[in-house]
């Protein structure tokens, strides 16, 4: 009988969060100790202490057989990364244990330890050693790595002179040639241009098919389904499902659907005096039909229904009333505020209900999910109606790619195109 490559039992990892217990200087530590003392004898409570800790992974047990390729799936904060960190021995568990049979290599990032001032060759050796390769191993694979990275001519140039593409290619190439029996991989695939991405996925396919044990986390369900045979689904630190990758992905998708209602108006958390209220928000296309999402290059058009029946009895006039939409990332970070009183805005009609639209010309944001907070009020005077996360919408993948890279792996959130020109030497020929 072969032993499991990875055998985890009741694994838990607790983090201390907040500022109370985390002392950055000795002075804080002393102050903290004093206040704990006070708590113990003074008030006799320690209720707050439990709020400061978070079980990033909680009582997780599983086994991975040698040669299995396992995808770990879950929302942000589900504990996937922490699990990989514990498995790759970067941090130790708080409870439980893992038995690992065979050498384990972790690729949580490419290019770890690269030094700007060292050449490509030197960095290859350094990075290889950091990932756990021996000198002899790197010697043997050196030519292959350089060929794979397509940097042969620059191998003795300091990497600070590399383009970011070359840098990432070399970094991935070193990582991809790591030959441990067990490989722990975080989404490091999405590097470089489309051509190189294909090559990376091909390499991952290779690795997966050659009898090595791989644990892989990614938000890319297609990649997970293609590479993995088994899936583990995590939610808030717990392992909620383990099974064939198809089943687990399906379960994850179903759960995702029920949590967030893209394209639905939500009134939870509403506050304000309420004499004017938003009664509906929709994202609409050019023909006024509701849609869940639009591609980044299209205009974003929000239609807001407002109930103004209470205005006449409120003692305020319609003139001062402002409607604000705040577009936020799916983490809740405000990105943009739009008001109907802005330049190019619209006055509210004197009617009991009205519908107004706000058009944000495209291109807008990179593909992903976004939320909308809505606020109705009289600035400085009256908080009339406010709904956080009133609406959630999607920016879909672009219909026609206009950049040779995938948008979601580039930097930033806002999606714009600049007009580029060559000013010297002039005139430049257009490519």
């Amino acid at each position: 009988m072969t032993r499991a490559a990875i055998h985890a039992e009741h694994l838990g990892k607790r983090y201390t969060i907040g500022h109370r217990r985390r002392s950055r200087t000795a002075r804080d530590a002393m102050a903290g100790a004093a206040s704990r003392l006070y708590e113990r004898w003074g008030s006799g409570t320690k209720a707050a202490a439990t709020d400061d800790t978070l079980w990033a992974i909680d009582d997780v047990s599983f086994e991975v057989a040698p040669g299995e390729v396992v995808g770990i799936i879950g929302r942000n904060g589900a504990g996937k990364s922490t699990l990989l960190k514990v498995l790759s021995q970067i941090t130790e568990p708080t409870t439980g244990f893992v038995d690992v049979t065979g050498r384990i290599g972790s690729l949580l990032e490419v290019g770890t330890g690269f030094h700007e001032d060292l050449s490509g060759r030197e960095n290859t050796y350094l990075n290889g050693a950091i990932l756990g390769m021996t000198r002899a191993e790197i010697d043997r694979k050196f030519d292959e790595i350089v060929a794979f990275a397509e940097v042969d001519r620059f191998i003795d140039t300091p990497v600070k002179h590399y383009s970011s593409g070359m840098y990432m290619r070399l970094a991935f190439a070193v990582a991809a040639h790591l030959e441990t029996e067990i490989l722990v991989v975080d989404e490091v695939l999405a590097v470089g241009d489309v051509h190189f991405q294909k090559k990376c996925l091909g390499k991952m396919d290779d690795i997966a098919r050659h009898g090595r044990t791989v644990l892989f986390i990614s938000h890319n369900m297609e990649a997970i389904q293609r590479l993995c045979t088994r899936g583990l689904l995590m939610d808030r630190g717990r392992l909620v499902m383990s099974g064939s990758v198809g089943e687990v992905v399906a379960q994850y998708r179903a759960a995702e659907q029920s949590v967030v209602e893209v394209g639905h108006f939500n009134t939870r958390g509403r506050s304000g005096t309420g004499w004017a209220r938003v009664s509906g928000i929709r994202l609409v296309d050019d023909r006024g039909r509701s849609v869940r999402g639009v591609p980044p290059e299209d205009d974003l058009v929000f239609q807001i229904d407002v109930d103004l029946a209470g205005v006449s009895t409120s003692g305020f006039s319609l003139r001062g009333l402002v409607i604000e939409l705040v577009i936020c990332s799916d983490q809740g970070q405000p990105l943009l505020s739009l008001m109907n009183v802005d330049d190019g805005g619209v006055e509210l009609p004197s009617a009991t209900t009205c519908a107004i639209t706000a058009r944000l010309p495209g291109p807008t944001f990179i593909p992903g999910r976004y939320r909308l907070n809505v606020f109705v009020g009289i600035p400085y005077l009256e908080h009339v109606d406010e709904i956080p996360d009133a609406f959630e919408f999607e920016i879909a993948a672009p219909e026609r790619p206009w950049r040779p890279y995938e948008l979601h792996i580039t930097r930033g959130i806002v999606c714009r195109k600049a007009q580029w020109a060559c000013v010297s030497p002039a005139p430049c020929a257009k490519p």
Partner: protein
Amino acid sequence: MPTAAVDITRRLQPSQGWNGRTLSDIWAYRELLYFFIWRDIKVRYKQTLLGAGWAIIQPLMTMVVFTIFFGHLAKVPSDGLPYPVFSLMALVPWTYFASALAGCSTSLSGYQHIISKVYFPRLIIPIGAVVAPLVDFAIGFAILIGLMAWYRIVPGPSIVWLPALMLLALATAAGVGVWLAALNVRYRDVRYVVPFVVQLWMFATPVAYPASLVPAQWRAVYGLNPMAGVIEGFRWALAGGPAPGVITLVSAAVVVVLIAGGAHYFRRLEGTFADVI
């Protein structure tokens, strides 16, 4: 690098401090240790005007200042040696010790990125940090040999003890540095404490004055400062004279205790470095 065979099972669990695996682990990662040291040396003087010249200037300038103020003005005795040689013999190992200690104490923060992404025995970082300044030491030592030749001082057979004394200096830097390095992960105070400690420590060490100024009955106590043993030993190994004996022995014992305690403390904390760094 982890040379463990395919069928060896390792258990990852909450740490227990120093154990049998510590040394074999470090041994398994010796190549990475070598790479860290090599990288450290390679990038140390990048983008500096004088480069390795700094390794010469520091002890040399200090020697000049000491010679003027302690040697000529204060007339500090120098055990019969010309004061410049007397002080440089101490300054070369002391400069090594000071930079090794400073490097070692703050070594982990320079590697914080790697620590949070890859496993390796964290102890190799402080170990690498005390080894890398040996290059500067070698350069400084060459200058010292030159100065000794100038004054026609020929070392006797006691010079064979030099490597052992150097090892003691390295071990002292590592013993204290490992404690500070582990503390520095959590408490950044260490960064401010170290320069201050190094400065005070130098005056508690026979760098500018001979240990013979210390009354005989206090010599053993003086040896509790391991660098006192190193520096006295250094002068004896190079210029002869009475062997330092008890001072150096006490120093060696202190260092063993420091290192053992430091390594244990470090091992106990290293499993969570990635979380707090």
